[in-house]
């Protein structure tokens, strides 16, 4: 049983939105349905200023607030540590959207149901060619892999870079940021 997670190195993120549009093509999403949102921070003042782009998407928390608040059980823990949303059960009450501290769940403007990053790139583990956020990133910011396997690429990278979840231990998030 793997426990999938992701590492995002914001030092290499140039804010080009390729991951968002690639994800929309890979998962056939609506134009206004984005599973990745972006924060931009200016550090310093003119002329010594540095820009940091921070992509945020579902952290697939092991103690997911969305799963705990979802009344219909639509949000649930799937296999290999991937948090899923069962589109057949969601009534669109948006409780999970409110409960998610990272604000990365979006409401489908057609069906009214809620959806989020599905870690679809797990399919690439067995070699299927995909244009998910990990493959599409122009500067290779993202590493996806099994956190339980110490010598997986992601585990080694986390140790090497000291990556940590974006908001500390707010939840047991499984996206580790290098900042």
């Amino acid at each position: 049983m793997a426990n999938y997670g992701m590492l995002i190195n914001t030092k290499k993120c140039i804010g080009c939105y390729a991951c968002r549009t690639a994800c929309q093509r890979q998962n056939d999403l609506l134009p206004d349905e984005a599973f990745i949102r972006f924060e931009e921070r200016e550090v310093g003042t003119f002329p010594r200023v540095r820009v940091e782009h921070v992509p945020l998407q579902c952290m697939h928390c092991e103690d997911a607030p969305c799963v705990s608040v979802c009344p219909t059980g639509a949000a649930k823990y799937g296999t290999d540590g991937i948090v899923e949303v069962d589109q057949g059960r969601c009534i669109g009450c948006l409780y999970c959207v409110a409960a998610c501290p990272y604000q990365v769940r979006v409401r489908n403007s057609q069906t009214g149901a809620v959806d989020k990053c599905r870690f679809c790139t797990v399919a690439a583990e067995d070699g299927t060619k995909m244009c998910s956020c990990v493959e599409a990133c122009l500067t290779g910011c993202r590493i996806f892999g099994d956190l339980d396997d110490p010598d997986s690429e992601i585990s080694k990278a986390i140790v090497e870079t000291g990556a940590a979840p974006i908001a500390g231990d707010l939840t047991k998030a499984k996206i580790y940021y290098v900042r």
Partner: protein
Amino acid sequence: MSENAITRRSFLAGSAGVAAAAAVGFTSFGAWQQAHAEEEAGEGRTEAVHTLCNACSSKCGYTAYVVDGKLTKLIGDPQNPNASGHLCARGYGYSQIAYSKDRLTDPLKKNAQGRFEAISWDQAYAEIAEKVSEIIEKDGPGALALVQDPRPSGSYYAKRFMTALGSPNSYTHGAACNLSKVSGITQAIGAGDWVSDVENSRMTMFIGRSYCDGIRPSQVAALERAYENGSRLVMVDPRCNNSTVFATEWVPITPGTDLALVLAMSNVLIKNHLYDADFVAANGVGFDEWAEAISGCTPAWAEQITGVPADTIERLAAEFAEAAPAASIEPSWRGAYGCAYANSGETARAVALFNTLLGCWNQPGGALLTSSAAAGKLDDPRFAAPPKPEGTLLGTAEYPLAAASMGSAVFAGEMAKAGVLKGMFFYNSNMAAGYSNPAYLAEALSNLELMVVCDVQMSETALLADYVLPETSYLERAELPEFGGGKVPYVALRSQVLDVIHPNTKSCDQIFTELAEACGVGEYFAFTQEELADAQLKTVGLDLDSLRLVGTVQFPEKAFAYGAAPKWNTPTKKVQFTSEACAKAGLSASPVWVEPQTVPEDGAFRLVGGKEAIMTHTQTANIPELMNIAEQYGLDRPWISAADAAALGIEDNDECVVENEQHSGTSKVRVTERIAPGVVYIPSHFGCSVPEQHTAYGFGLRIMDYVPFHIEPAYGSAMTQEATVKIKKVGA
């Protein structure tokens, strides 16, 4: 009343017998959706087809996956030198143009009341041909012109059509893109461009060029590798653009004064004998005259003009000298001196000369003069070129330095206004919105007797036209092979990914072939696009089917070799520190300081355009996937520096009035530290004024509304950033 034949008539073929409809196969929509969803997950009938992205002129090669006739995922081809395995956001977004609800579906003619009506292709061809022959009789073929943004098939067919008619006036969009840059560099080194070997460089300077905003994936990767290898990467830009993520230094500069910076750095190299004297002596001519002419351009002098501290200029020049020859100034594209200022051409010349001082031509990490692959000579008579039209491109006399391959399209606009040009064809070009002042161009182009626009959707230019010919989207057509240059020359092919969606639309090769037949010059188009493509590929040892399978093929045997002594095909066969052509054109023989045309009076800001990573000029604004990003993150907002905003009492996201004599508009503004004071940045993609581009219409300001119509002396560019604006809070 009994049933009779009429009311039983039906559109659905095969139902004449009516009763015969098989009673078996009807499923309700719900059941169908269920089955459809499962089947989609199970990867139904999937095809993978190689094509070239059409979202910008990089034309990255990618593989499109089609499931049951519907486009799904796109994956950049690793073997394509531009994509190198990736696509940018525009690539993914613009692929949806195929299904856009705002697409043109039938040929259109403007009726007497000025409204468009659908007509048949035959009627369109006949009427256009009649008008063309009428113009040729009255004013000769020279009264016709073509403006296009070159794409693989377009650059061949459209130009061949115009040449077949006998008109030399084939323009590209260069006058609003990189005309000054290419022309200026050609004056100095006889070539229009070079490739900076960024990843192997010890130092590279980017002037108004951001690899991470004007994205070509292979360049972003090269920049990242250079950054990781510890190369010194200097971004000279009024804006702290996204490439500063991979830069060691951001040098904010006053817009339009890059020439002063380059001259000052050159001055430092020459004065301190830090330049490659033997290389200059062996390859240059007129160096002493230039050295003398710029002796006054000291760093202190440059500081007043550019706002860059003198010691920074001194240091940069020294760092360049120390890093040479594995160092260069990147050629840039449109931003700083592509077409922006009265001194753009001269700036391009100075940059080329500066690289010569470094002696970095064809050196590892320096500036590489790479060659491009090309199709060999085609001996089949059908492909023979039409006779060369006599007379030269309109504007050659007025703007002698403008590169002939592009010509000054804005001058063509002026000629339309003056009535010299009577008929104009536009392919894949939205001149009226992007090349220069839209109000002026609208007036000028409506003066034409015949205006034909060929495009995928209605644009500002198409609105002005008499005839609009609908083209298929790039995914529904195959095009001629794209021969490209770079370290390893290559050829890439755009194959047809989707069946033609709107039956009444045609691909550009069909359109121009049938137009030529209608105009009586069909003999130059007696071949199909496939035949020509196959013939071209056979001259380089390939063929259409093999390339269709692979998408892109490289020619390692023609790869670039470091250290090769460059051949300068300038008139003097040397690097021209002094150019006789420039002197004849009324400029200084050697590039010296030229003041930009507009100097902001107090309270006004210098206006700069620029690129957002998700948009390509006005072409991608109507794509919902991309426009939704712009709306969500306010990417249309003008930028103003925190210092200026504080002085004007403006806070982030305030609604402000942006105005000058040309135009006035309101928009939320972005207050940021990432721009130099005294400068306002408006992205060059928004403010679409075409109602039927429902997604793009009326969103954001259009920068070109603020730019008056004027043309750069000698070079013929549109001077797209020679404008100033005032900003004040609404209600202030």
